């Protein structure tokens, strides 16, 4: 009986520490979820004379994938993202973050281009407004132009199938 209380405290402590171990401190919840996608007007990577702004995607569910040719884990997710985009389930826009346009173009021509278009964010201004702190990052934007989900870090087959795809499907069902 006298050991019951210390045992109880011990168990609670172990549970809390266990939860703590499972948390990823690098996954910072974005305050932008449910808020309108921050606007920007930036040149397109492959057609610098044309610009892109998130407003142009209104009425569509789309993904914004933040990448860069200097980013190692972007290379890792690229294969899966390309495969996912090829299914045509959702349009993916790329944001080439703090990257030289020629490096970005070379990267895409070597590894394949999953994006309907990419945007050049040379100074990282759009990235700052979108709260980007570690590339790659992937945002899901709904038909009304609200950010509904953010994935920090590389997306693999599991995240694409079990997280991104269901969200896209639900959002496709929503009224625009």
């Amino acid at each position, binding site marked *: 009986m006298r050991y019951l209380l210390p045992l109880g405290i011990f168990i609670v402590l172990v549970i809390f520490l266990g939860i703590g171990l499972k948390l990823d401190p690098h996954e910072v919840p*974005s*305050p932008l979820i449910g808020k309108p996608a921050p606007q920007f007007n930036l040149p397109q990577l492959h057609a610098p004379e044309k610009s892109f702004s998130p407003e142009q995607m209104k009425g569509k569910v789309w993904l914004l994938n933040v990448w860069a040719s200097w980013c190692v884990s972007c290379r890792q997710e690229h294969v899966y993202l390309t495969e996912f985009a090829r299914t045509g389930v959702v349009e993916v826009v790329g944001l080439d973050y703090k990257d030289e346009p020629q490096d970005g173009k070379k990267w895409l021509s070597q590894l394949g281009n999953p994006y309907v278009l990419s945007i050049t964010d040379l100074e990282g201004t759009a990235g*700052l407004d*979108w*709260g980007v*702190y570690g590339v790659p990052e992937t945002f899901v934007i709904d038909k009304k132009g609200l950010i509904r989900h953010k994935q920090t870090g590389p997306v693999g087959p599991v995240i694409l199938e079990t997280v991104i795809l269901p969200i896209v499907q639900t959002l496709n069902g929503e009224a625009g």
Partner: protein
Amino acid sequence: MKKIVMFLLVLFCQIALAEIKVYDFKDPVLELRYQALTEELRCLVCQNQNIADSHAELAQDLRSKVYEKLMVGETDDQIISYMTNRYGDFVLYRPPLKSKTMILWLAPVLTVLLGGLGF
């Protein structure tokens, strides 16, 4: 002797290059506010450093943002909310008292009280 002097000069050159970019403030009050703000804001890349100490590129960007905003006369609150609107309360080393952070603020007091009760 000359060689040694040259060698030392080269060494100092590198030190100068490695230094964090220093912003020029004409107004000492602004400078103090800049120091306070950058020490209060957490760098999201190297999470145990504030943006004043960090060499990460994001920290550099955020420092220049703070400087820019101070120069156009924004208040500390405006700058802090600019940061939290983008990165959440996580950027603050002292999180605000909210229902979500209540346990964080109350846990130390509760622990002391529990201890006082003889546990």
